[in-house]
């Protein structure tokens, strides 16, 4: 950068480089301003709330706010032996405030989750504390119940001090903190969430597989047929695609019911006896059949758009060089369709893994998936922090699938029809 004479100037006498940079910057700002409204809208109404789901899922401030003085006093306590008088006194002070606001019951419930037996002794404390004398809180509290003399109960309180907890995530994986603060699994017969996670994965995997097995041949047919036939057949794919999800689910409910047409047909061809019609709805079969039909267009459309671009002369060249139809297909055609397979499988898998409506309607008890559990906790038990935790676990799973897909195929290869 030695010569100043080489600099080209604009008519205004400003160096061209500076002027160009200024113009580029202006363009950058202009482009960004156009994107701004939507970006802000999405961030405020969507991205932040997902973040809020996270803070809600680990939030444990309720008890932190209930026992502020106790936790302050416990900071210096090493947690090995019974806490000093100061802790007892602050606990009593906190508890009195809670009792005044009639919130001591909530505290009992919360601490009972941490260690069984808290509810009873807190109720007892509430009854007796009116007769307490000034000072010497430790001795008076310990008098009430032998559990107050047990250091484990005080350790349990100390464990709740941090304003966050991973308990909801552990619960989502059928684990919990035991009374000593270790992570343990729940008993084998109560591991419902793990069953649901596995079932969700299983259903998503098999629905993707079925969609691939059924979608590949018809996408190939659509791509190779002359336009006037393929346009007509394309309607068979597009009409279900544009039709309401609930309408399609309803039609499967009619078809699969015990007196339904599918069962009628099975009876007619003698596959099953009339009085022994199989239950095809309200179980996994129903979920598989309905979800495969509903998600099939999402497999066919990306496959079709990729296959459409493959020139038929490639296959002809392969055949003229002596390849059998199978070899030319496997060595030439199939590898070229991999971007389409990737896009279709990704779409179907991700849609299937978060499916809610169809499993809820035709799934019955053995066909419900993890999303149904999330909705259940949102609407029925109102355990929103647990629903948030499970939602975020699902989201992490989806993002991992994207990441793997991006490594294998590349996310830019997705085509939307």
């Amino acid at each position: 950068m030695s010569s100043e004479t080489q600099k080209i100037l604009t008519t205004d006498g400003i160096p061209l480089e500076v002027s160009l940079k200024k113009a580029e910057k202006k363009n950058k700002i202009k482009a960004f301003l156009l994107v701004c409204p939507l970006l802000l809208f999405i961030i405020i109404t969507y991205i932040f709330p997902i973040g809020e789901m996270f803070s809600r899922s680990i939030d444990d401030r309720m008890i932190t706010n209930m026992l502020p003085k106790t936790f302050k006093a416990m900071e210096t306590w090493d947690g090995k032996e019974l806490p000093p008088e100061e802790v007892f006194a602050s606990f009593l002070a906190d508890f009195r405030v809670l009792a005044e606001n009639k919130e001591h019951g909530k505290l009992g419930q919360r601490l009972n989750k941490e260690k069984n037996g808290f509810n009873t002794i807190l109720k007892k404390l509430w009854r007796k504390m009116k007769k307490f004398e000034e000072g010497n809180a430790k001795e008076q509290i310990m008098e009430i119940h032998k559990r107050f003399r047990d250091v484990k109960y005080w350790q349990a309180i100390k464990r709740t001090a941090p304003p966050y907890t991973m308990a909801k995530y552990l619960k989502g994986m059928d684990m919990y903190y035991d009374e000593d603060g270790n992570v343990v699994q729940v008993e084998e017969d109560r591991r419902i969430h793990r069953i649901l996670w596995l079932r969700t994965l299983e259903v998503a995997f098999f629905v993707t597989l079925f969609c691939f097995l059924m979608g590949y041949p018809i996408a190939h047919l659509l791509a190779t047929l002359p336009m006037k036939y393929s346009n007509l057949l394309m309607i068979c794919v597009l009409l279900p695609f544009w039709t309401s999800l609930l309408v399609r689910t309803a039609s499967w409910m009619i078809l699969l019911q015990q007196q339904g047409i599918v069962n009628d047909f099975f009876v007619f061809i003698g596959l099953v006896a009339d009085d022994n019609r199989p239950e095809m709805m309200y179980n996994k079969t129903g979920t598989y059949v309905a979800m495969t039909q509903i998600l099939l267009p999402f497999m066919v459309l990306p496959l079709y758009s990729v296959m459409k671009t493959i020139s038929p002369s490639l296959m002809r060249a392969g055949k003229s060089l002596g390849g059998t139809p199978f070899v030319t297909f496997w060595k030439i055609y199939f590898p070229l369709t991999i971007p389409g397979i990737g896009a279709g499988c990704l779409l179907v898998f991700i849609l299937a893994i978060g499916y809610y409506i169809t499993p809820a309607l035709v799934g019955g008890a053995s066909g419900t998936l993890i999303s149904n559990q999330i909705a259940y906790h949102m609407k029925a038990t109102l355990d929103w922090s647990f629903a948030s935790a499970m939602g975020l676990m699902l989201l992490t799973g989806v993002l991992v699938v994207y990441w793997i897909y991006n490594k294998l195929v590349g996310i830019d290869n997705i085509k939307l029809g």
Partner: protein
Amino acid sequence: MALPKYTEPHYRVWHYTYLFICGSVFFFLIAPLFVIFPLSFNAEEFLVFSEGMKRLDPDAFSLRWYEDMIYGTKNPWGAAAKNSFIIAIFATLGSIVLGTVAALGLSSRHMPYKGLIMATLISPMIVPLIISGVAIFFFMAKVGLAATHLGIILAHIILGTPFVVITVTATLSGFDHSVTRAAASLGSNPVNTFMKITLPLILPGVISGGLFAFVTSFDEVVVVLFLAGLENTTIPIQMWTGLREQLSPTILAVATCLIVLSVLILVTAELIRRRSERLRGINR
């Protein structure tokens, strides 16, 4: 797909097996939709084909479920349809405006952090609906928009914009920017250039994105289930409750109407696609 005469027998067999497989898959895709039609004209209350229907006896068919759909008091389908259309139309308009403007910015080559911003904008399409539902519900509850039309419309704009962004950026990727430069050199201001030059050219992309947004909103259940109060039940919500409690033929009547609607949308989308293909054909 007629086979040449010299085709070997085993290949011939394979070819017909292949066609048979394809035929079965097409049947599997389309047949379930056609079950609904005849059953919605059932004169009886059961969801199976009655003996009379099998004999094509005219007395076995009736329009009573359509009457029930329109005049019935038990399920207020009329109110639900009104809500659905209001919400879907406003959500579509919102998605189109926000999405198109953002797509214009995104397809500018000066746009910084393009990948990251694009990922953010289309994230509502990628994230499973149930999670979107939970997140949007938390937001709407906090700002007091839960159980309002506005809240649902905003939620559907969130879900609908990714489609508009994707289709419009795709249309803009083949867009010849010299025409806007020509307009600017002839003294047109940016807004005028957009309205007179850019918009007509990208209109197919805008409309097909809008159609996606409309269908998404009109068919959306999961998020509405979290957000809707009694005042804003939509058709999908009404169907959802109906399907959960008792499958009545009235639902099938509604379903038939919805299928007719989706045929209309399909035809529109197809016409737009062909038109834009024709236009692109001229350009080449």
